[in-house]
């Protein structure tokens, strides 16, 4: 999921882009606290992705990368919402074949039994 590349413009001119990147990193860390595979796993991969792009200096490209980071945040929000939905469904309703097949797709990688 963390294939998006974000940059940390340590040496690029616009300082407001730098603070945007730092804010993005902070938001991603907050989101990563609930990540199914654990905070440390998420944090290590996030950091390596940011460091990989730390050399990017072109402001337009930096904005593209920031956009990708925000997309990742939206994906994580959707993931957590789906997990909560499944947890409550599992707790309060009988297992129903029709709805189970509707809410699990073949591309789902997260275990639906995790209740957090």
């Amino acid at each position, binding site marked *: 999921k963390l294939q998006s590349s974000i940059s*940390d413009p340590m040496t690029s001119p616009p300082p407001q882009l730098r603070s945007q990147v730092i804010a993005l990193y902070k938001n991603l*860390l907050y989101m990563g606290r609930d990540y199914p595979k654990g905070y440390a796993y998420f944090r290590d991969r996030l950091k390596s992705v*940011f460091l990989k792009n730390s050399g990017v200096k072109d402001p337009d490209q930096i904005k593209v990368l920031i956009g990708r980071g925000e997309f990742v945040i939206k994906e994580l929000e959707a993931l957590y919402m789906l997990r909560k939905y499944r947890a409550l469904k599992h707790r309060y309703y009988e297992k129903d074949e029709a709805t189970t097949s509707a809410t699990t797709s073949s591309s789902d990688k997260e275990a639906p039994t995790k209740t957090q």
Partner: protein
Amino acid sequence: AAPTNILSALGTIAPHRCYGHGVEMTRHMLNERVLLVLRLFDKINPDKLTLESQFAKDLGLDSLDHVELIMAVEDEFGFEIPDQDAERLRSPEDIVQYLCDKLDVFD
């Protein structure tokens, strides 16, 4: 529910009510708490840690580690530190001084 930071885990001397004023904070206590939070941070070598050590120069932290560190301090003290304040906090001494200003600790 009581806040789950280090201070409440160690047990306070005075009885701690959730909606009460809170524990009387001194600068010495702030030093201890900040240093403890930093020592528990896995990117910091506890042997090299002093109040004056600079995160970037002496402890070898990059700007992303710095973000995480400030988050750990935010969790301990229970309030958010805005990014523009956070980037000025370059050593434990800076953090303690900032907290003294925010928490009205005068000594």
